């Protein structure tokens, strides 16, 4: 599926537009492969490589095969293109180990299929015991981010840092990053630790009830849809004025609609009460509602500054406090996922208010994660790059076009791309992931 609103991407995909773009060296974005019910995990066989002891390689091969992937043999004389290449570099400790990475990886990378996946598995830098080991594990990050930029035709490259004792917790992130669900995630690093809380029950059940704020349109509506795919009841929250669209979303996903201004003084108590009475508590809270009021910092008036902080930062803080304060409003092992933005990481001209709010929520999830850990819960953030929604459709033409192309995948993401990442972090597959920020930006050049 292609981004329907991106006329340029359609123009250069085939025919004379494609020829011209090729001659001019202009970007030619590939139509990204996205999740479809019943589709294969990969577009071709998976090649699993290892450096040194490669302690994870055997499990990884087993898990991929169980997920329906065909395992490739690097030596076999075929010109099959690889659907995925996984390199277990978790045992890399010395510069010599690092040097050994090139030989198997380079030819495999050359044979990567369109929309292929490269996953490098490293160790947690904190788990290393020597300075050299810390250095070479950090080096993997530079390698991965570069491969992300050199990858072609919709392929993505990501690094998973696997903590000691992560065990089965690696399986979910591995499958997510190998699958079409991570179409717009590239050049990113995720750390995986042991599963939090007694994951067994949760892993099989998945979340029963989720709340998504700002669910009437855009990313929020997509999040509701992806969460509902696995049977979660989604309480779709938005302003009363958005009720018509909100009802459509809620009914489409078999969820329910709640008219609530998240900035209202009564909102936290009202939401807690609603969740408790109607659903016996929530397993997932997605703070997605957000607004922009762009102005250069010196021209920003009090209202423009305050309103963005109010909706994007203060409201999620208060809502979360309200839910935590009300016994039972959040079920044990609850997950909070917060929408941030790459502009919150990198800053953006004319968005002092927005960037402050979106950086603020990163601080929020880190601190909140520690609090939720006690009940086996977790908090994480997703930082989208340029996503095709009503918010970005309002941007002036030039910045919008630059925003789209300034990423390794040379296109804007779709709301569903962000939603897949949110649902992953909210679900049982992310039992070993907490307090982190996952960028869904096609490896945007901003704040990389």
């Amino acid at each position, binding site marked *: 599926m292609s981004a329907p609103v991106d006329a340029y991407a359609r123009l250069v995909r085939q025919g004379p537009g494609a020829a011209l773009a090729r001659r001019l060296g202009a970007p030619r974005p590939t139509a990204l492969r996205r999740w479809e019910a019943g589709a294969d995990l990969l577009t071709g066989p998976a090649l699993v490589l290892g450096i040194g002891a490669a302690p994870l390689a055997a499990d990884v091969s087993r898990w991929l095969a169980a997920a329906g992937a065909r395992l490739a043999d690097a030596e076999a004389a075929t010109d099959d293109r690889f659907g995925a290449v996984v390199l277990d570099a978790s045992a890399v400790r010395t510069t010599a180990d690092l040097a050994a990475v090139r030989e198997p990886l380079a030819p495999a990378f050359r044979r990567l299929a369109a929309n292929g996946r490269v996953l490098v598995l490293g160790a947690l830098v904190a788990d290393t015991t020597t300075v050299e080991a810390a250095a070479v594990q950090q080096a993997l990050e530079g390698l991965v981010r570069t491969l992300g930029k050199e990858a072609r035709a919709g392929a993505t490259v990501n690094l998973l840092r696997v903590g000691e004792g992560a065990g089965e917790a690696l399986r979910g992130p591995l499958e997510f990053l190998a699958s079409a669900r991570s179409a717009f995630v590239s050049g990113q690093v995720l750390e995986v630790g042991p599963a939090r809380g007694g994951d067994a029950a949760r892993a099989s059940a998945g979340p029963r009830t989720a709340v998504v704020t700002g669910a009437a349109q855009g990313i929020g509506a997509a999040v509701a849809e992806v969460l509902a795919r696995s049977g979660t009841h989604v309480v779709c929250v938005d302003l009363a*004025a958005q*009720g*018509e669209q909100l*009802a459509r979303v809620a009914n489409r996903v078999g*969820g329910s*609609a709640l008219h*609530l201004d998240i900035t209202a003084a009564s909102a936290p108590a009202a939401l807690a009460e609603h969740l408790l009475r*109607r659903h016996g508590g929530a397993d997932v809270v997605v703070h997605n509602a957000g607004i922009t009021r762009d102005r250069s910092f010196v021209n920003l008036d009090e209202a423009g500054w305050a309103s963005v902080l109010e909706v994007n930062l203060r409201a999620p803080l208060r809502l979360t406090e309200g839910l935590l304060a009300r016994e039972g409003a959040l079920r044990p092992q609850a997950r909070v996922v917060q929408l941030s933005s790459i502009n919150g990481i990198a800053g953006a001209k004319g968005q002092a208010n927005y960037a402050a709010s979106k950086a603020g929520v990163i601080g929020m999830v880190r601190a909140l994660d520690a609090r939720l850990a006690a009940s086996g819960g977790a908090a994480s953030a997703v930082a989208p790059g340029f996503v095709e929604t009503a918010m970005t459709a309002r941007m002036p033409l030039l910045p919008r076009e630059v925003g789209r192309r300034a990423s390794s995948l040379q296109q804007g993401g779709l709301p569903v791309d962000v939603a897949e990442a949110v649902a992953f972090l909210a679900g049982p597959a992310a039992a070993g992931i907490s307090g982190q920020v996952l960028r869904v930006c096609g490896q945007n050049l901003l704040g990389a």
Partner: protein
Amino acid sequence: MSVPADPAAAPVPEGRLPRRAAILGGNRTPFARAGGRYAEASAQDLLVAAIDGLVARFGLAGEQLGEVVAGAVLKHSRDLNLTREAVLSTALSPRTPTYDVAQACGTGLEAAVLLANKIALGQVESGIAGGTDSASDAPIAVDDGLRRVLLALQRARTPQQRLAALSRFRPRQVVPATPRVTEPRTGLSMGEHAARTALQWHVSREDQDLLALESHRHLAEAYERGFFDDLLTPYLGLRRDDNLRPDTSLEKLAKLRPVFGRDEEGPATMTAGNSTPLTDGAAVVLLASDAWAAEHRLDVLAHLVDAQTAAVDHVRAGEGLLTAPVFAVPELLRRNGWTFDDLDLVEIHEAFASTVLATTAAWEDEEFCRTRLGLDGALGTIDRKKLNVVGSSLATGHPFAATGARILASTAKLLAERGGGRALISICAAGGQGIAALVEAP
């Protein structure tokens, strides 16, 4: 009057019905003045929107309910299965059965009463009741002469017969007969009827304007405090009733020219400001047994206790066309052992401000209550502080069949907000009919 009141029968307040149906909530479209925002929407579209908003609010997508009961006053012949066709376009399970009800302006409340009775009898556990009307998309009938020509043409077998049929055609017959809000047996509009009743009860222009002002003020306040956030879902970009004039004043209302009662002997007092306009909109309520509500983790806002209809003889006896509730209410109260003092809220549908005022005047009139209602004295005075506290039809507008469900849902929510209490709902309807209901917090 036609209510068979048997003063000897003892009141049987509790347990008269096997169980009481619970009101769990409601939803409506904002109401729009005819020819406005919903000009292109059909009554069915409006009903679908109202039901879908309710389904979303209560998370009922895909649910099979006991039944959906609704109706419309201005009904196209193609809409013979209006509610069923509407439900098939909603997110409800297509296996939800339906039926249509018609009782003029009483339709919405009558639909709820019928559903509540089935719930009380255990015939269904849950359902949706309400109504819809589009004055913009009103059916236009062909002239009756033309209709006969066309029917004869259809029956004709030979060219001669066809010619004969066609020869009865007259050019003036192509002017369509648009529906009018006139009473078939008197030829008078509802407004003209109401104007006569207003004169009979000496209802002043000032009192009518004041009631209209209060309706607008109350409705505006209710919107401001978010009262309708869980009773209403925007439709086609409209977020509030567009008839609402939050800034209206007695001065502004006093300037309006009377439109009804100008041919009567006596002051004409009824204006566009103290009468309801033609309106488009739909409203529904969710009713269920207490057990169904508990199973679905839904709060019971209130119970529907009892209901009573009545009809007057406005044709031969000259009784006020819109005064049937004057008779229905005392019987309903008596049967349940309630008096006005037991009521915390009173909703009297504001077809016209004068209707409300004539109704309350009748109940305050000792002579009338003794001779016509068979009471010992005046029924009593309705405390204005309890009357139509979140505004009524003068401010919201009045899409005929939708009004009952609008009032019932608001009343149930008001009772839940107060944390207890009892309410009376009274609605007058065309044809000299009326319906009243009692509602009580759980």
